[in-house]
């Protein structure tokens, strides 16, 4: 395989996105009068194409070997492969990101036509590029690339959040998002410099290799070098900021409320998937041998995050803001999975000991993420559905929705049920895997806290449902929407159902993704 082949195979989806993104920008320059819908459809095309390319990467049987082979023969290829990894974690989360992005693109078109008067091509272009940044984020196994990708994703999100030109709330949301982001970035970079000081490298797998000998045969966690551990925690500021975990969550409710709704959906779905995947890559894979140092902290933060999200959500009257707190609490559940990590998992990942699926939480996180993405997208599609008609997202706009649009009400109810965790929807099994793993790792208190939190969360989700079904509608006319938005909602709910019913295959897929997490490009250049 030549270098060019390798380059295209390895970076296929990313190259495709870059190409289409710049194409969108230039198209606007060449044909200023092109109908705006064209840009939306091109964006959709970009994401569908990306999904296809990722699928091709996953399905081609010996791609990984070919890549490895080529990298050994080719110097440039070596550097590509050592910074940009094509392991299961990356492909799985790219798949999830693209699925989320497709649904988001579907709901964006109408919203944009209704709410934006200018800058529409750039809006789509920026969406494409932020998805590109997310793809880089989940693939990079080197700190410099990783931090550039995170910043790229953040900066394009700031801009997108500020996009409602005349709306002060939008600018304010972006401003807060930006300032908190800049602070956490600085802290995270400081942490990276400490990690660099402690390890002398920026490659995650080299760090793993350094810590591995100290892990020992028994899998007993050891006390990690302090600068590295403190640096890792400071890096948690950046990653925690991306996924909106407490105490780095401050921006989240405000940005979610102020940003254009499709961008809110983007932040809560695509951005969160990428953030969680990166968090797992850094913590569970790069610094897995140091788990004794960070597991208690993540367990504690997980508890705080879900409790804060759920309790604060109880009082929200704006459904967009409610979704913000809800997404914070969902991150709390996800973190249970990270906290249930143990050194023996690490050895399992390396193939050093046999796999006991029930004990390991990491595949559960992926399963949960996928279900969460579908359910959340279903919910957001209905929210946009209503917002496009009513022009608002307060609770009152949803009153009597069951009479005004029974389909929308049913879809939103199902999405919420999945988020609460009612079988047979995906949310239930996701929580089942995560709480089960926590139980088997001696984190019973965390599992109990998760269950209690799920009960609390039912209050605010069902409050919205109650208003939809038992309150008289504010206005009599039906709420209709375009085929794109409704199909996005239907796809989201169907996805949540499918993942729930096909639990076993989905879980197997998530698990398969994980046997590559600790993918260290086992190539030595000769």
């Amino acid at each position: 395989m030549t270098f060019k082949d390798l380059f295209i195979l390895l970076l296929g989806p990313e190259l495709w996105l870059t190409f289409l993104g710049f194409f969108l920008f230039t198209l606007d320059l060449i044909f200023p009068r092109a109908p705006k819908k064209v840009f939306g459809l091109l964006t959709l095309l970009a994401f569908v194409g990306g999904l296809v390319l990722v699928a091709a990467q996953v399905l081609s049987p010996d791609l990984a070997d070919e890549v490895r082979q080529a990298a050994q023969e080719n110097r440039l290829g070596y550097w590509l492969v050592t910074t940009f990894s094509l392991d299961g974690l990356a492909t799985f989360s790219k798949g999830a990101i693209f699925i989320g992005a497709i649904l988001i693109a579907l709901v964006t078109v109408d919203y944009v036509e209704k709410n934006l008067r200018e800058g529409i091509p750039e809006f789509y272009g920026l969406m494409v590029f932020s998805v590109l940044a997310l793809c880089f984020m989940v693939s990079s196994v080197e700190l410099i690339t990783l931090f550039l990708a995170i910043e790229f994703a953040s900066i394009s999100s700031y801009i997108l959040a500020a996009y409602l030109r005349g709306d002060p709330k939008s600018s304010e949301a972006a401003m807060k998002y930006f300032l908190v982001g800049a602070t956490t970035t600085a802290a995270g970079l400081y942490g990276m410099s400490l990690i660099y000081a402690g390890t002398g490298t920026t490659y995650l797998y080299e760090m793993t290799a350094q810590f591995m000998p100290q892990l020992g045969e028994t899998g007993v966690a050891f006390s990690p070098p302090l600068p590295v551990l403190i640096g890792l925690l400071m890096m948690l500021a950046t990653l925690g900021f991306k996924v909106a975990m407490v105490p780095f969550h401050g921006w989240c409710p405000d940005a979610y409320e102020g940003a254009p709704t499709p961008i809110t959906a983007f932040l809560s779905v695509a951005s969160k998937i990428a953030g969680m995947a990166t968090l797992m890559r850094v913590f569970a894979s790069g610094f897995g041998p140091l788990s004794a140092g960070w597991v208690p902290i993540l367990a504690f933060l997980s508890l705080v995050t879900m409790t804060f999200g759920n309790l604060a959500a109880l009082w929200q009257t704006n459904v967009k803001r409610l979704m913000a707190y809800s997404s914070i609490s969902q991150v709390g559940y996800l973190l249970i999975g990270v906290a249930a990590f143990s050194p023996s998992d690490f050895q399992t990942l390396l193939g050093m000991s046999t796999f006991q699926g029930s004990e390991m939480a990491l595949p559960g996180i992926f399963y949960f993420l996928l279900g969460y993405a579908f359910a959340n997208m279903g919910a957001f599609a209905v929210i946009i559905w209503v917002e496009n008609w009513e022009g608002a997202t307060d609770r009152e706009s949803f009153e009597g929705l069951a009479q005004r649009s029974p389909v929308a009400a049913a879809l939103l109810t199902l999405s919420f049920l999945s988020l609460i965790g009612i079988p047979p929807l995906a949310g239930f099994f996701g929580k089942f895997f995560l709480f089960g793993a926590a139980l088997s790792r001696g984190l019973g208190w965390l599992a109990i806290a998760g269950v209690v939190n799920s009960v609390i969360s039912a209050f605010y989700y069902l409050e919205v449902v109650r208003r939809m079904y038992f309150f008289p509608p504010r206005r009599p006319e039906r709420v209709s929407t375009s085929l794109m938005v409704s199909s996005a909602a239907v796809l989201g709910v169907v996805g949540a159902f499918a993942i729930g019913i096909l639990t076993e295959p989905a879980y197997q897929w998530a698990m398969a993704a994980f046997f590559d997490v600790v993918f260290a490009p086992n190539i030595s250049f000769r």
Partner: protein
Amino acid sequence: MEIGLSHYLILSGLLFAIGIYGILTRRNAIALLMCVELMLNAVNINLVAINRFLQPDWRIMTGQIFAAFVIVLAAAEACVGFALVIAIYRNLNRINVDEINLLKW
């Protein structure tokens, strides 16, 4: 007397802490952005000093490259940050961050 790594670490820590102080106390958004620059420079001092003191081979300049990318980031951040300041000024007629709280609770 010898200047060692800890001198640089402490200097960068001081700069970082001053940046944090500024970020928490200044009200003007532009001033806040300057404080962010201070914090990023603290990181750069760290990176370059670590590179020099801990890497025996001077040609492996990972830290310097890292610092260069941090500068790139700082440029992009400053650019977007000021664009946001202008946008928020246009919409709200103020740039003091403690007066910007339409969104809360």
